[in-house]
């Protein structure tokens, strides 16, 4: 009887799925496999997550943009050109003629002003990118306004280089939304916030057709895009949380691109004739931060000794190989204003001497906090080993980000191994967080700033950071960033270690995928297959 049932079961399975079920992706559709569990909104005034950032970059054109054709050059997006007043306080934007939103509405100066004002009024997390210019809910209507149908005038109410302002208009919050459509969907004065979370109203290369959380996102090409219709009619992003499943899907051709493969899986695909591996340098940094409120860690010699107790070479040559490279300054290499000196390497002798000078010749005991996900626990273990060689005994605690960040923000860590990527492509985005701490009091709660979280207060560095942010002359500004980064490299509680590259597996026929330095510089529109 057992046999009968076994045969029956097998027969059933064969009958159900007996036909070959693998279908290759259609020629006009791009299918991407990605872990999308991080999306919580698609409203450009609120998006601050990796996947969401990437999606809105393809849905909305921004005031200023880095285009996939040349990722190093900041150019006008919705704005065709700009002029800066002599005092550097007013920027006049000229809106490009002939652009339309997905709805068919023309793109007007009014839409640009509305989009920027909306960011301030909604006051979501990324709004700090604009509020630093002195814009607030009370004054933004007079500081950001359309002066005629195609001209917008922006007035800065703080000491800031206009170059920095233009760079920040390239961030996600610089996305231009269709005022008419958004306001038609407004509810209780929310400026369309509830609606725009899962709908789109942009003028970019694609429009959002569906977002089913934890399932899929479908984008549809905008045939009237200002650079011409995208190569793909449709882009489908499938939520595939398991990397091994992503690998199988891309190997079989059921998806065109797999985004979350682990380094060892990528190694396993190296010889494949069906797929290619794309490697894209990113601006994400991995760093160690010591808490300056800690009695021992606040000693300058101890902070410096930390730099010599990290086996940079050993890590990038072993478990980080292919994905990380050594970088030791706060602004990543490959971007304007970067500082590429790497003066530190593992040197136990030097570290020991510094520790002895600080009064700890026999080391001390310390706690290390980091994320559970790879490769953070491996990095922490490597650091634990090199610390031990200098007599420092350490305990590692692994936590999820949602548990670790509150601890970090409450200044309750001792040593933390963490990551950082810029909010927009200007050195100020990182120096403002790593080096600028205008108020070190606990009750100031400048929790967004890493310098505050580590209780690091250095008036000289503060002045340098502020000076570089407001410098009008570009050559001078660049020099100031080099000087600032060199100082931060030596005296801060931050030991910057690595810069990341994203590895993406693509089917051989997929051409034109572009993934730029920042998380939201991923473009689908030039893809063909």
């Amino acid at each position: 009887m057992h046999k009968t049932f076994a045969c029956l079961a097998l027969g059933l399975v064969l009958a159900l799925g007996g036909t070959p079920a693998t279908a290759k992706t259609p020629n006009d559709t791009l299918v991407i496999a990605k872990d999308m569990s991080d999306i919580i909104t698609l409203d450009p005034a609120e998006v601050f997550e990796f996947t969401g950032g990437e999606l809105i970059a393809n849905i909305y054109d921004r005031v200023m943009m880095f285009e996939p054709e040349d990722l190093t050059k900041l150019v006008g997006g919705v704005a065709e050109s700009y002029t800066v007043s002599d005092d550097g306080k007013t920027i006049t934007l000229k809106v490009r003629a002939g652009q339309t939103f997905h709805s068919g509405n023309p793109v007007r100066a009014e839409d640009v002003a509305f989009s920027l004002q909306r960011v301030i009024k909604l006051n979501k997390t990324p709004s700090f990118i604009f509020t630093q210019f002195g814009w607030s809910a009370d004054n933004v209507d007079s500081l950001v306004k359309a002066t005629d149908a195609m001209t917008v005038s922006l007035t800065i109410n703080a000491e800031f280089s206009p170059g920095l302002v233009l760079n920040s208009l390239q961030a996600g919050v610089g996305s231009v939304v269709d005022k008419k459509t958004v306001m038609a969907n407004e509810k209780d004065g929310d400026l369309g916030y509830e609606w725009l979370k899962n709908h789109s109203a942009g003028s970019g290369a694609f429009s959002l057709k569906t977002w089913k959380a934890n399932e899929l996102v479908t984008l549809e090409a905008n045939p009237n895009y200002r650079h011409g219709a995208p190569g793909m009619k449709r882009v489908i992003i499938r939520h595939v949380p398991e990397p091994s499943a992503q690998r199988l899907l891309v190997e079989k051709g059921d998806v065109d691109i797999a985004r979350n493969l682990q380094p060892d899986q990528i190694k396993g695909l190296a010889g494949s004739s069906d797929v290619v591996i794309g490697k894209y340098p990113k601006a994400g940094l991995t760093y160690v931060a010591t808490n300056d409120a800690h009695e021992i860690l606040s000693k300058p010699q101890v902070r410096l000794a930390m730099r010599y107790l990290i086996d940079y070479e050993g890590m990038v040559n072993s478990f980080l190989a292919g994905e990380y490279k050594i970088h030791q300054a706060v602004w990543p290499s490959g971007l304007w204003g970067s500082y590429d000196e790497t003066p530190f390497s593992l040197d136990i002798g030097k570290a020991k001497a510094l520790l002895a000078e600080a009064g700890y010749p026999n080391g001390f005991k310390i706690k290390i906090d980091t994320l559970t996900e790879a490769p953070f626990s491996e990095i922490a273990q490597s650091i634990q080993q090199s610390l031990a060689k200098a007599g420092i005994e350490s305990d590692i605690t692994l936590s999820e980000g949602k548990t670790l960040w509150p601890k970090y923000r409450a200044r309750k860590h001792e040593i933390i191994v963490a990551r950082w990527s810029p909010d927009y492509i200007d050195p100020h985005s990182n120096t403002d967080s790593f080096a600028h701490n205008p108020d070190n009091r606990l009750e100031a709660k400048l929790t967004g700033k890493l310098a505050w979280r580590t209780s690091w207060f250095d008036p000289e560095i503060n002045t340098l950071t502020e000076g570089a942010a407001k410098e009008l002359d570009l050559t001078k500004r660049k020099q100031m960033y080099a000087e600032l980064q060199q100082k931060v490299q030596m005296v801060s509680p931050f030991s910057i270690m690595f810069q990341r590259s994203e590895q993406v597996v693509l089917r051989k026929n997929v051409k034109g995928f572009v993934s730029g330095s920042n998380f939201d510089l991923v473009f689908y529109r030039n893809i063909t297959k």
Partner: protein
Amino acid sequence: MAHSGNPIAGTGTGSSPRQFVARAANLLFTLSLTFVGLTAITFIIGRVMPADPVLAIVGDRAPREVYEAMYVKLGLDKPLIHQYLIYLVNVLQGDFGKSIMTTRPVLDDLIRFFPATFELASIATIAGVFIGVPMGVVAAVRQGRLTDHIVRVVGLIGYSVPIFWLGLMALLVFYARLEWLPGPGRIEVYYDGIVEPTTGFILIDSPTTGFILIDSAMQKEWEVFHNALSHIVLPAAMLTTFALAYIARMTRSFMLDQLNQEYVITARVKGLSEMAVIWRHAFRNVLIQLITIIGLTYASLLEGSVLTETVFAWPGIGQYITNSLFNADMNAVIGGTVVVGICFVGINMISDALYRIVDPRARR
């Protein structure tokens, strides 16, 4: 344990209106107690967890003002009991709150994700019963012989091999190598949206997906039906191995108990065929215990199997609750827990009803 032939048993089925009211009141009391207990515990665990629900929304770089505004908006500034009461009142009005991750009402999400799990769990349980029960019976009858050993090995595999690994291996073999079955996912993405979700949750006007298999069959979209069916085979087979292993093992041990009873010897002495002894006499006495086991298996599958759902990119309730938990999305977690609770209570009630049908003694 006597083989019951009590003539009074058949007359005890009727229940007076009074008994009915008492039973209904009892049920209502159990249900509300379960509900309050379930939500209270989940709520408190959610609030004492070190994960910060505010950061889950605003991100770790949020400036102080944004953080504090959200803190107040979520009502976290109020005392815990107060927060819980507000939640309870909302739920009683049918409002489970909004999910952070999906930005949609939790109820809508549950209506969307639960059918995916329900389809999977139902198929796995049915298959598990139809394969596992005969396996267990055969193993008991042939105790100590080859068949018994085979069943034991199959059971051990189903029980002890990590389903995560088994799922990946199944994908590797049936999808990647043999190409018999499609890869991860509930349906080919190109078929998404072809079938109108009509079943949904039947009770409520469902906004998105319902039971794909039923919907597509009802709308005669056979291509979609076939595609969805071929997608469900592997994940359902994974859950079936789990269900089957448990059901077969338990059936075997229950059957062994019965086969050693005196009434079995009596039946054999009477000259009944072996089939009649096993199925008509021994097996009937195992049924009640089996119903409990099957009910429990079904309920635990309805919780959603996170690992299977993750490997097969199956948009079910297990993944939904787990993701929500990682994101401190407590409205979603509590909503999901309530659904799981309802499943357990519901299946218990069905089991109770089945007892009455199969066991005359339980009708009294």
